[in-house]
C-alpha cells in the first residue's frame, strides 16, 4: 500500500506522492479545459487592444486621456497603485508565510507568485506611458550623463523606480526558485523541444540531498529578503501621495494604510483567481476550503486596517481644523463623486464585516463574490484618493471634474487582459502548485518531520554549516 502523502493534514482526499504529482501536472500535460480557452482568448484580444491604446497614447499624446488641470493624475495612477497593491499577496504568501512556518501557503504560492509577477508588470507600464515625454524615461535612472546631471532623489517618483525594480526582481526570482524542482520533474516527463526548454530552465536540478539543502537555504534567504519588500514597496508608492500638499494626500498614515490595503486587495485578487481555478482543474483537494478560510481571515484582518484608516481620515480632517482638508472630506461624502465614495465604504467597511462569520467566510460562493467586490472597492479607494483629492484642492477656481476617455478604459481592460492571458500561459507551462511540498514547508508546531524526499530539517539548517 503506497504511503500517504506527508501533508495529509493540509490537503484533502487520499493522496500518495505519485497521485498528487499526476494531479498537479494535469494542467500542463493534459489539454486545457474550455474555461481556460475562453480566458486565454479574451485575455489575448484585450492585450491587443491594450497595445493599440498604448500606440495611440505615444503617437497622439496624453491629450487622448481624460486628464486635465487640475486632475493630472487620473486612471493611469489609479491603476498603477491598484496593480501594485494586488501584487502584494503573492509576496506575503511567498515570503512572510514561509518565515512564519505557515505550511498552508504551499498550495497557493505558485498562483499568487505568478499573479504578483503579472500584476507588477501591468503596474510598471503605467509610469512609463503616463510620462509626457516617455522617450526620455531613462533620465529618472541614476547614471553619469553628458549633461552632468543626476536625478532628483528627493522625489518619491525616484524612489518608486527603485521600489518597482526591486519588487519585480524579487518576485521573478521567487517564482523561478519555487519552480525549479517542478521544472526538473517536467523535464524528466517530457520530450523534444519541451524537454530542452524545461531542461535549460531547471538549471541541472537532480533532486539530490545537496541540492535540496541548498534550495531550502536559498528559499528561506529569499523569503527573508522579500519580507521587507511587502511593507516597503507600497509604502514608497504611498509616499507619492503623502509627500504632496494636496488635501486628502498629505497624511502620515498613508504608508501603513496603503500596506494594509495592498494585502487586502492582493488576497482578494488571489481569491478571485484561485476559486475558479480549483473548480476548473478539480484541485479542491489541494486548494481546500480550509485554505480559502485562512485567506479569508487574512483578508479580514487587512481589510479592518483599511476600514479603520477611512474612519481615522475623517477624524483627522475634522480635528486638524484645516479648512481645505475638511472641505475635501465633505466633498467626498456629498459632492458629485459621492456615490463612488459611499460604494467604497459599503464594500470595504460594511460588507467586509461578513468575513467575521464562518457562515460567510467558509461559503466559497460568497467568498468569490466578495473578492471581486473587494477589488472593486480598492479600485474605488484609489479613485477617491487620486482623482477626487486632485479635483477639489485649495482654490475654488481650480476645481474640475475628471472623465476618462476610451483610451483610459482600454488601457485598464488591456492590463486586465494581459494579466489573465499571462496567467493562462503560465498555468499551461508550469504546475499550479509545487509538488515537493514538504521540503519548502518546515515544521508544524515545532515537531520535526522526516519526509522521504529531503534530508535535513529545520534544526539541521539552523546549525552552522558551510554550504
Amino acid at each position, binding site marked *: 500500500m503506497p504511503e500517504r502523502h506527508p501533508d495529509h493534514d493540509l490537503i484533502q482526499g487520499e493522496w500518495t506522492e505519485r497521485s498528487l504529482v499526476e494531479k498537479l501536472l494535469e494542467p500542463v500535460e493534459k489539454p486545457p479545459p474550455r474555461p481556460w480557452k475562453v480566458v486565454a482568448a479574451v485575455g489575448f484580444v484585450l492585450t491587443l487592444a491594450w497595445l493599440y491604446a498604448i500606440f495611440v497614447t505615444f503617437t497622439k499624446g496624453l491629450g487622448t486621456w481624460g486628464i486635465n488641470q487640475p486632475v493630472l493624475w487620473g486612471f493611469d495612477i489609479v491603476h498603477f497603485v491598484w496593480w501594485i497593491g494586488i501584487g502584494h499577496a503573492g509576496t506575503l504568501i511567498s515570503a512572510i508565510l514561509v518565515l512564519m512556518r505557515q505550511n498552508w501557503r504551499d498550495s497557493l504560492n505558485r498562483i499568487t507568485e505568478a499573479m504578483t509577477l503579472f500584476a507588477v508588470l501591468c503596474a510598471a507600464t503605467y509610469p512609463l506611458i503616463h510620462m509626457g515625454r516617455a522617450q526620455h524615461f531613462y533620465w529618472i535612472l541614476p*547614471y553619469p550623463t553628458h549633461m*552632468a546631471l543626476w536625478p532628483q532623489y528627493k522625489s518619491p517618483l525616484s524612489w518608486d523606480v527603485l521600489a518597482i525594480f526591486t519588487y519585480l526582481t524579487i518576485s521573478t526570482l521567487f517564482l523561478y526558485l519555487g519552480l525549479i524542482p517542478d521544472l526538473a520533474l517536467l523535464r524528466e516527463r517530457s520530450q523534444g523541444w519541451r524537454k530542452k526548454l524545461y531542461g535549460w530552465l531547471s538549471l541541472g536540478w537532480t533532486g539530490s540531498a545537496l541540492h535540496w539543502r541548498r534550495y531550502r537555504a536559498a528559499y528561506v534567504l529569499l523569503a527573508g529578503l522579500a519580507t521587507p519588500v511587502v511593507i516597503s514597496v507600497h509604502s514608497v508608492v504611498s509616499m507619492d501621495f503623502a509627500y504632496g500638499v494636496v488635501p486628502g494626500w498629505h497624511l502620515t498614515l498613508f504608508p501603513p494604510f496603503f500596506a494594509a490595503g495592498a494585502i487586502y486587495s492582493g488576497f482578494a485578487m488571489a481569491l478571485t483567481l484561485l476559486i475558479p481555478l480549483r473548480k476548473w482543474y478539480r484541485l479542491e483537494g489541494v486548494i481546500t476550503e480550509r485554505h480559502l478560510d485562512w485567506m479569508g481571515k487574512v483578508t479580514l484582518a487587512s481589510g479592518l486596517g483599511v476600514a479603520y484608516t477611512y474612519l481615522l481620515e475623517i477624524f483627522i480632517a475634522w480635528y486638524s481644523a484645516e479648512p481645505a482638508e475638511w472641505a475635501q472630506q465633505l466633498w467626498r461624502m456629498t459632492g458629485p463623486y459621492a456615490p463612488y465614495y459611499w460604494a467604497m465604504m459599503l464594500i470595504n467597511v460594511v460588507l467586509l464585516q461578513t468575513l467575521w462569520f464562518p457562515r460567510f467566510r467558509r461559503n466559497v460562493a460568497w467568498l468569490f463574490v466578495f473578492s471581486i467586490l473587494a477589488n472593486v472597492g480598492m479600485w474605488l479607494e484609489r479613485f477617491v484618493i487620486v482623482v477626487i483629492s486632485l479635483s477639489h484642492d485649495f482654490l475654488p477656481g481650480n476645481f474640475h471634474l475628471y472623465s476618462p476617455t476610451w483610451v483610459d478604459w482600454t488601457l485598464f481592460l488591456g492590463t486586465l487582459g494581459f494579466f489573465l492571458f499571462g496567467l493562462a500561459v503560465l498555468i499551461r507551462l508550469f504546475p499550479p502548485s509545487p509538488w515537493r511540498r514538504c521540503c519548502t514547508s518546515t515544521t508544524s508546531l515545532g515537531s520535526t518531520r522526516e519526509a522521504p524526499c529531503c534530508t535535513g530539517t529545520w534544526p539541521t539548517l539552523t546549525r552552522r554549516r558551510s554550504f
Partner: protein
Amino acid sequence: MRRRNRWLKTLFWGSVLGVFLALVLVFSGVAVGALEQREGRPVPQPVPFSHAFHAGGLGLSCRYCHSAVEYAPYAGLPPTETCMTCHLYVKPDSPNLALVRESWEKGELLRWNRVVNLPDFVYFHHAPHVAKGVGCAECHGRVDQMPVVYQPKAFTMKFCLDCHRNPAPRLRPREQVFNMAYVPDPELGRELLQLYHVRPPEELTSCNTCHR
C-alpha cells in the same frame, strides 16, 4: 562533473561577469567621457576660407568679421562687403573667390555652413562671456591655426558646466580675449573673478543661465 553542469557553471558565472562589466562601463563615466573627447570634423565651406591664413598668418582680428560678439548673443558672420574690403584689390580674379564676387555683384547672401549649432533650448549669449574675460580660444580652440574650421570639443552640457563650475582657470584679461595664443593663468583668473564680478558657481550653474 557532468558536462552539462560545467556548461551551466560557465554560463552562469559568465553572465555574472557580463552584468558586472556592463555596470562598470555605465557607472565609470566612460560613456560620458567619450562624448566629450569627440572632436568635431572639419566642416566644408562653399568658399575655401582659411582662418589659419587670415587670422593666423595675416593677424586679422576675430572682431573684424565676427563683429557682434561683444554685444549680441551671436557672434555673427560677416557680410560680403567685409570680404570685398580686401578682395576687391587683393587677388581679384582668384577662382577660389568666385562665389564671393558673385555674391557681391548680385547682392545675394553667401551661404556658409554652420560649425556650431546649439539646440534651440540653449540660450548662449556671447556678450557677457567676452565682457568677463572668456577667450575665444577657450571654447572654439585655436581657430587661427585651422585651415578648415572644426569644433575641438563637443558642446555638451558637461562642457559648459565644467567651466561654469570653476571659471577661474579659464579667465583672461579682457585685452587678451581675442588673443588666441594666450594661455590663461589660474592665479590671475582668481583675481579676475573679483575684478570682473563673475558670479559664484551656484549662480552660474542655475538652470536659467542657459535655459529659458
